């Protein structure tokens, strides 16, 4: 062997180790071998998986194809979206109504794809609003937000929207404990007055409509994440908690005093029994419930004012506490439903709890004491085992179909693969950089697909061309089909993804809505044909029943509107084919544009502020004559008596334009 080459090789290894040891590897450390061909999806071909990704502080969901990492769609949920008029059109404004009025933004943290028998069924995506507590339901047929339910008695909806095996319930657990019923108390009275609340939201199996079945009132600490049991543990829900110290200031220090916080195990079937017996009390609290109808193409918002509450300190056998080291973040249930993985984000080991052992410990009353009267099970009695030295800062665990678990390590910027039964660490691979959540295809279900895993990283630094102080968020795709994990691809994401779920494209591909049938349009201002177009004045409101079809708007001449009038353009898209939306924009609009899907009606409200002739036009390039798809509205000074008239294609005199 050539000694020089040998020394060079040694030096390389040392260099590699020293880099790995003290800071994350440089960006040029790349994927190897056939990575490019593994992620290449040829033009005109489809990705194998849909990846539904939370947008974090953009309040949206984004849809990516896997393995290509291509962004296919951004769909607004809790945030206004001027691009298509969501939250700006008269029809969609009620979607963002809350007990605090119109709230146009939220922090969308997690997603949950609906499941049947523990497997993805491809019907809905649930998403949580972390800031002004809300849960949304999004259709996987139309890729639109169909429903938003506000959560009362919550101080921030983080432990959400995790779901039970058959989507019986969606969970909304409060991140911050607060005094209930908007009570005005001293912050220092935390221990006395602050409470936590966990909402169990019932999902109608046909319509998907959500309603709060009951709320659990808990001692005042913070709820972080949660997962439902599966298979044998179906009927239970597991919540990670922190700040069991009940600190109300400098939580960074004061909420990290105890060696162990709790995983809260909830027997929700027991809670259902109490409710069925008429137990619990009705509490008054205002919250909004918003539903979008595909028939009227409009949302309605209803303010509800009561919720049924079960105080867990008053009803035994609903809740047990499991001690879990150091402020656990993830509490993840494996595909068999037997193991519950707690990720103490400040802990050196990672406990894996056994559902069977928990049942035995409860039956044998192996308790180490109680917290506010609620039994705390002995740690050793529930423990399946600990993963030793898994890495630094464990956050989340997902699973493959072969009995392996994958845990994200925020502090040490890596993913660790380990075996659920033996707890032996099998592999570790760096992420760039500081991974938060991770997503295995079908990872949280009872039948994971494995194959690929996506890392959602919190720090981007040098992974992409620099774009000033704010950088694209970094996701990374790994091949997990073999014994060793392999990095395949970096791809940028929008917002800040906190969580994502992925399922095979074939599950929903054929179900996609292509257009809305014009015959079934029940919008009160729909013009189902040009014959129904008209303009009517009601006081200072002017309503325009308008139609759009390639390539003209009807009416495209409107007169008789005055400064100070509110003009409602109700635009119906008469097209009945896929991929032919029309848009509508008018000069000086203080809101946005609207995009109108085929067969749909949407309304843009516009205030006439100056006299003159104002153009409006179609914004979505629709045909060769798209540029011609426009119109004029004449605005006369306030109080004028210009006759109301409207037309399309009418030439009034020989010298007025068009024709010969």
């Amino acid at each position, binding site marked *: 062997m050539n000694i020089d080459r040998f020394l060079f090789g040694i030096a390389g290894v040392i260099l590699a180790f020293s880099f790995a040891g003290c800071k994350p590897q440089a960006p040029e450390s790349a994927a190897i071998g056939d990575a490019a061909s593994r992620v290449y999806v040829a033009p*005109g071909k489809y990705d194998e998986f849909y990846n539904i990704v939370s947008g974090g502080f953009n309040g949206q969901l984004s849809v990516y194809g896997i393995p290509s990492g291509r962004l296919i769609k951004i769909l607004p949920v809790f945030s206004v979206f001027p691009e298509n008029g969501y939250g700006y059109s008269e029809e969609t404004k009620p979607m963002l109504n809350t007990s605090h009025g119109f709230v146009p933004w939220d922090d969308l943290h997690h997603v949950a794809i609906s499941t049947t028998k523990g497997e993805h069924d491809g019907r809905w995506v649930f998403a949580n609003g972390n800031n002004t507590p809300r849960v949304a339901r999004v259709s996987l047929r139309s890729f639109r937000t169909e429903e938003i339910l506000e959560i009362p008695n919550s101080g921030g909806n983080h432990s959400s929207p995790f779901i039970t095996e058959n989507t019986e319930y969606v969970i909304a657990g409060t991140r911050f404990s607060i005094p209930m019923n908007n009570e005005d108390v001293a912050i220092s009275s935390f221990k006395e007055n602050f409470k936590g609340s966990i909402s169990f939201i019932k999902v109608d199996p046909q319509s998907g409509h959500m309603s709060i079945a009951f709320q659990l009132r808990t001692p005042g600490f913070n709820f972080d994440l949660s997962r439902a049991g599966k298979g044998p543990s179906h009927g239970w829900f597991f919540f990670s908690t922190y700040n069991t110290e009940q600190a109300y200031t400098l939580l960074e220090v004061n909420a990290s005093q105890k060696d162990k916080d709790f995983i809260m195990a909830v027997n929700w079937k027991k809670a259902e029994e109490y409710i069925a017996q008429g137990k619990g009390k009705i509490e008054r609290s205002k919250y909004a419930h918003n539903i979008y109808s595909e028939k009227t193409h409009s949302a309605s918002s209803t303010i509800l004012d009561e919720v049924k509450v079960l105080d867990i300190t008053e009803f035994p056998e609903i809740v047990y506490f499991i001690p879990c080291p150091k402020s656990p973040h993830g509490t993840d249930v494996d595909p068999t439903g037997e193991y519950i993985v707690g990720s103490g984000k400040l802990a050196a080991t990672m406990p894996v709890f056994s559902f069977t052992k928990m049942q035995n410990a409860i039956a044998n009353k192996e308790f180490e004491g109680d917290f506010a009267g609620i039994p705390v099970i002995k740690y050793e009695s529930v423990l399946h085992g600990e993963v030793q030295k898994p890495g630094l800062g464990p956050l989340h665990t997902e699973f493959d179909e072969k009995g392996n678990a994958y845990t994200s390590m925020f502090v040490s910027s890596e993913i660790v693969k380990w075996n659920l039964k033996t707890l032996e660490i099998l592999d570790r691979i760096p992420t760039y950089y500081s991974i938060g959540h991770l997503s295995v295809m079908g990872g949280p279900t009872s039948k994971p697909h494995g194959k690929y895993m996506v890392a959602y990283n919190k720090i981007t630094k040098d992974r992409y061309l620099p774009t000033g102080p704010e950088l694209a968020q970094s996701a990374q795709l790994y091949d997990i089909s073999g014994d060793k994990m392999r990095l395949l691809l970096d791809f940028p994401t929008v917002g800040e993804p906190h969580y994502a779920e992925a399922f095979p494209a074939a599950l929903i591909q054929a179900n996609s809505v292509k*257009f809305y*049938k*014009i*015959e079934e349009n029940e919008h009160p201002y729909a013009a*189902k*044909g*040009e*014959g*129904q177009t008209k303009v009517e004045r009601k006081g200072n409101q002017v309503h325009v029943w308008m*139609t759009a*079809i*390639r*390539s*003209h708007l*009807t009416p495209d001449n409107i007169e008789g509107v005055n400064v100070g009038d509110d003009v409602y353009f109700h635009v119906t898209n*008469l*097209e*009945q*084919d896929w991929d*032919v939306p029309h848009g509508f924009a008018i000069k000086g609009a203080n809101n946005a544009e609207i995009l109108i899907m085929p067969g749909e009606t949407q309304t843009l409200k516009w205030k006439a502020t100056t006299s003159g002739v104002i153009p409006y036009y179609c914004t979505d390039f629709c*045909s*060769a*004559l798209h540029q011609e798809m426009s119109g004029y509205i004449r605005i006369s000074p306030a109080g004028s008596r210009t006759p109301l008239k409207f037309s399309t*294609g009418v030439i009034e005199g020989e010298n007025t334009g068009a024709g010969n």
Partner: protein
Amino acid sequence: MKKLFFILTLSALFISCAPDKPLENQEGTSGTNNKNPVAANANPTKGIGEVKNVTLNTPLEQERIGRGKAIYEMKCQACHKLNDQRVVGPGWAGVTKRREPEWIMNMITNVDIMLDQDPEARKLLELCLMRMPNQNVSVGDARDVLEYMRQNDGEK
């Protein structure tokens, strides 16, 4: 021969300009070579599509006319007037005299293939420079529309 060459060139132009259709609609379109069985076998008077034979009754079927008129007003009127004036598309006056009933119904129900392959439909596209939209009208509904056209053309 020269004429054939012209048509082929024109076809090539149109095909290369049109966006790719989704796979499900691609059956039957065969690119630019001259072995296009669908086009070669197309009946120039009946058009291309699932409508092969239409039976017309006299007197007109009044129920169909009512339904056909409603469909016209919802899905067709924006581009087709009832007189002979061309707006976006040709006016309907006289259409049932110029065209076979099958051709009319195929044009309504199978518009994308017709515009790509039927010589008569293509002539209209060159004239109007606007692809007629697929309005997802069923064959049964197209038959009702046809009856309404017959009435518009003065049949009793």
